[in-house]
């Protein structure tokens, strides 16, 4: 197994782990963390695809750097909403899950 293939499979596994975290976590902050795992898993997959032909390809790398910055801005907005929601409702979970917990 070559390096890029190994990292691509790791990226695929990270996407699965992240999605499981997104579904299973009830605390909204953990959901944002899991969302970041999905994103970085996809970045690794894309980066491995760029490195597949032997030499590294700068185009996916530039796209990934753009993606990392956009992921941070999305996370910052999401976290702002989580904190505002928790302050307004007193709970860090979504209203429809309060009954189950």
């Amino acid at each position: 197994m070559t390096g890029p293939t190994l990292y691509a499979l790791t990226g695929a596994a990270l996407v699965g782990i992240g999605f499981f975290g997104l579904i299973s976590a009830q605390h909204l902050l953990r959901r944002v963390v899991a969302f970041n795992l999905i994103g970085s898993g996809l970045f690794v997959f894309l980066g491995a695809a760029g490195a597949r032909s032997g030499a590294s390809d700068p185009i996916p790398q530039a796209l990934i750097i753009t993606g990392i910055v956009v992921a941070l801005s999305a996370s910052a907005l999401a976290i702002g909403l989580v904190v505002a929601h928790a302050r307004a409702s007193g709970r860090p979970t979504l209203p429809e899950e309060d009954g189950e917990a």
Partner: protein
Amino acid sequence: MTLVLDLTLCALILAVALATVLGGGVFRAIVFFIVYGLLLSVAWVRLDAVDVALAEAAIGAGLTGVLFLSAFGKLSRIGAEAEPPAAGIRALLPAALACAGLTGALAWAWFALPVPERPAPDLATALPRAGIENPVTAVLLNFRAWDTLLESIVLLAALIGVWMLARDEDWHDRFGLPQHVRPGGVMANFGRLLPPVGVLVGVYLVYVGADRPGGAFQGGTVLAAVGLVAALAGLLRPPRVTQIVWRMGLVAGPLVFLIAGIVGAILGAGFLTLPEPIAGSAIFVIEIALVASIAVTLAFLVIGPPEQGHRE
């Protein structure tokens, strides 16, 4: 030998990611996520993508980690940091199977995709005309300038979104929560020690970005981190939303980028296409303005809306 290194690294990354998702407690998840980001940046070096490794370490692990930790602190103040009891294994089994299926589908896609023969032949022929030598910076600021221009506007839009969450009575206050630091403690000392080194590293990353790994985003992030460390140590008082100088700093990058794009159109090369003779210097000017905007925007995004008066 290198395969052993890659295998160990991938196993570590997966173990830490699993610990992030499955471990008990929100705080533990955040700490594991920061470790995950640092391991991932080593993986980027292994994939021969040093520019991405720098971005991942600075933004993915560093700033995102600070963002999560400060949110955890804010939630702790109102007693909302504890997790509700998790659902049982039986309820989560379908979700686990579906996620395993997703991983399997992605793995299948990898082997089903055709292997490219060699990377981007167009880029190799176009690179001498880019005005700079680092191919990643050339793609970011010249060949795919549209992406980067819109990205800098996305940053601005996210910041406006965060500011909209401020309460009316806090609007004229300084950003973030008031910081209290023990005199002579770790934070007070590091707040003095790190910023000079950080400024040097940040400016260097921007400067070498034209020819070697580095660039506006990595350098700007380090400079934003310098500001955050100084603010957390209580040495720098965060500014206010209403201060016009800082607002100018926020829009400088996108504005200069847009003007450069329009100049390209006037000179006949087309919107956001830099004419070859001035490409190098144009990229330099755009980069300086972008660094200022990225540093200010990222620091404001992480420190959060003004809420100095928030007490509960």
